[in-house]
């Protein structure tokens, strides 16, 4: 109960603070920093960039991940316009398609030189996992992509996509919050955004104050947890049960 | 090594199939030692004596069934042997049919439906349904799958809420799983003895709940079923599968090591050229 109040209080407080302009800064995230490098390398090789924002619909439980994937797409679109490299995006869910197109359309001018390459958003079937993966593999092989981004909610197709990208020699940046798939992404790609990192990256790129404030509030709740754990453990070592009792209450 | 990298993947597949197939046909009989979390789960389920009611929630889909259904089979076999009352329910739609088939199987073996084993059915709504069920069983299941009012079933005698089950086992392939059961049931009835029975992939994320005492034990996948069969001294199909399992592990390990050796070799070659 107290915990809930603390968490909600912290999130509320930092959200208000962010709305007043005190926006928290987000720490550098390795996978995000590697993004520019990957797009740059694809440019050097003269190969297109390939992007998949997950396979799930926008209105399901995985929505937050899909959304984070789409925000990264906007950023990658900006980068590829700046480096003048073609961008291919494969989208599975019908509800994601218009949002993905919008992200690309908004991201491109930010990088200057709009209209040099027409970015393509390719719709693929989503209900059939294997068919979707096959469609992506086909694009990757045909276009010999130089960098592949797989960020969003992925299920078992994660393996096929990461493997396929590595086979054509692309640098692979992946990210998902599905715990089962993270290990496969880590061992099969060059950089991985792990779990909550995709939400933080999404919030950072979107610059949405509510979400950044919420992020800070969640951080302080975690700090409280760490403090309780450490102090509690030290006290328990000396036979003091105060914090355990406090938590049972 | 580079030639190895270009090997047609179908050879890899064929080798794997062969290696798993052989020990199924000709078992090697490698001994199996139960792990601590399975022993805890076994003991928690053993706490149910003759006449005690045990709830098993079959929250699994067909796709994960080969990994989890052997657990259900092994647990029910043991409970039937001891004369417990087994109540089956499902919060994932596809789990319900497994329950119906199991009840029919035990009926054919001479157990009485409604007294020894009963199938309540499926309820949609995930956590809302689990919470509602835990607080008032009859509100979610006024009748069983065969249309009998549950108030008339001897197996359901004295069962009003989740508290009235001696042990609850949640057999899950995803959501809902033990985490959801803990959230909705343990908060309302902390004294309930809950066992987490999960597919292998969910094992790692379920163990923290065993260490914290929120779960009385945990059985992980097909190997969990095999360990239970060993503990209950009734070796069955899960134990029979373990040799094939072992060989599969060895094969994948071999692939990973070969792949990484090739990777190191090409990297070294590139390095010496530069």
């Amino acid at each position, binding site marked *: 109960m107290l915990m809930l109040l603390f968490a909600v209080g912290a999130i509320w407080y930092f959200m208000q603070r962010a709305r007043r302009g005190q926006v928290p800064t987000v720490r550098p995230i390795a996978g995000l920093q590697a993004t520019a490098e990957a797009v740059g390398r694809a440019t050097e090789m003269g190969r297109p960039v390939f992007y998949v924002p997950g396979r799930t619909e926008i209105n399901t439980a995985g929505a937050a991940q899909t959304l984070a994937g789409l925000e990264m797409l906007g950023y990658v679109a900006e980068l590829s316009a700046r480096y003048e490299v073609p961008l291919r995006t494969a989208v599975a869910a019908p509800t994601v398609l218009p949002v993905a197109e919008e992200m690309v359309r908004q991201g491109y001018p930010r990088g200057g030189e709009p209209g040099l390459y027409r970015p393509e958003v390719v719709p693929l079937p989503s209900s059939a996992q294997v068919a979707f993966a096959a469609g992506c593999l086909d694009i990757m092989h045909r276009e010999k992509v130089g960098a592949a981004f797989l960020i969003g909610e992925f299920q078992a197709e994660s393996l096929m996509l990461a493997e396929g990208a*590595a086979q054509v020699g692309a640098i692979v940046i992946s990210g998902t919050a599905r715990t089962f798939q993270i290990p496969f992404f880590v*061992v*099969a790609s060059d950089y991985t955004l792990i779990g909550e990192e995709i939400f933080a990256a999404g919030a950072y790129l979107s610059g949405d104050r509510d979400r950044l404030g919420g992020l800070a509030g969640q951080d302080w709740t975690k700090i409280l947890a760490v403090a309780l754990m450490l102090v509690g453990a030290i006290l328990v070592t000396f036979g003091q049960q105060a914090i355990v009792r406090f938590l049972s209450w | 090594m580079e030639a190895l990298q270009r090997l047609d993947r179908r050879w890899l597949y064929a080798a794997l199939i062969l290696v798993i197939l052989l020990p199924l046909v000709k078992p090697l009989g490698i001994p199996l030692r139960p792990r*601590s979390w399975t022993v805890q789960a076994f003991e928690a389920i053993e706490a149910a004596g003759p006449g005690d009611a045990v709830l098993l929630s079959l929250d699994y889909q067909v796709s994960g069934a080969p990994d989890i259904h052997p657990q259900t089979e092994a647990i029910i076999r043991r409970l039937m042997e001891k004369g417990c009352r087994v109540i089956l329910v499902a919060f994932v739609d596809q789990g319900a049919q497994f329950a119906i088939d199991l009840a029919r199987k035990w009926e054919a073996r001479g157990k009485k439906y409604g007294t020894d084993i009963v199938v309540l059915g499926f309820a949609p*709504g995930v956590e809302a*349904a689990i919470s509602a069920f835990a607080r008032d069983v009859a509100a979610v299941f006024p009748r069983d799958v065969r249309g009998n009012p549950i108030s008339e079933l001897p197996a359901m005698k004295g069962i009003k809420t989740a508290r009235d089950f001696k042990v609850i086992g949640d057999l899950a392939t995803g959501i809902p799983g033990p*985490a959801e059961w803990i959230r909705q049931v343990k908060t309302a009835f902390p004294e309930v003895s809950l066992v987490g029975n999960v597919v292998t992939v969910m094992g790692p994320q379920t163990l923290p709940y065993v260490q914290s005492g929120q779960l009385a034990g945990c059985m992980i996948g097909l190997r969990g079923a095999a360990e239970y069969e060993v503990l209950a001294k009734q070796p069955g199909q899960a134990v029979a599968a373990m040799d094939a399992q072992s060989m599969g592990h060895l094969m994948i*390990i071999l692939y990973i090591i070969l792949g990484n050796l090739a990777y190191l070799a090409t990297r070294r070659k590139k390095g010496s050229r530069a």
Partner: protein
Amino acid sequence: MRKEIPMAVASICGFLVLINFFFEKALPFTKGWVDTLQNWGVVVSAFAMGLAAVNLVFIHARHIARRSPGWYNSLALLVAMVLSTVSGIVFYAAPKAAWAAGLRSLWTYLFNGLLKPLGAAMFSTLVFFIASAAFRSFRARSVEAAILLGAGLIALLGAAPIGELISEAFPRASNWIMDVPNVAGNRAIIMGAAIGAVALGFRILLGIDRPYIGGE
């Protein structure tokens, strides 16, 4: 009104559940309310389960009408769907009636002859994707990936009964990984997810996030 009513519904339901969760002893009457809400939730969820099916009907009926490539697959899908819907409803509505015996065995046949083996087979092919990825792309590219692969190999060898034959050390190391670093790592993830759920829930109850609107 088109936005306010849904927002109010989400907030009121949510707050009632939370109030009952924390103050059930002080406010015992909230239990009845929340029980009712949850029972309603079961009913509404039942209706929601049909949505995906209706969507499928639309998509595949269109494929068939346009004779688009592979339309016969769409037809097979719809036929399978109708058969299982009808026989399933009868199976549950008339569990004993003699006239329904044929449909009841059709239902059992569809489940055991098609649904169960197809689902199991589809997921069991995943092991082959792992096999080829193991061979081609599971690389210790970085320190992190090396730790992961090392722990993974030990876990894999220790979890196979044969690992124990090779050396006692494998199961011991594998159990240690499962019991110590795994519990630590997963516990932190679980805690992070719980805080995330609170943050999301809070925004939904206040109407800042409205996932139920979307798709205008």
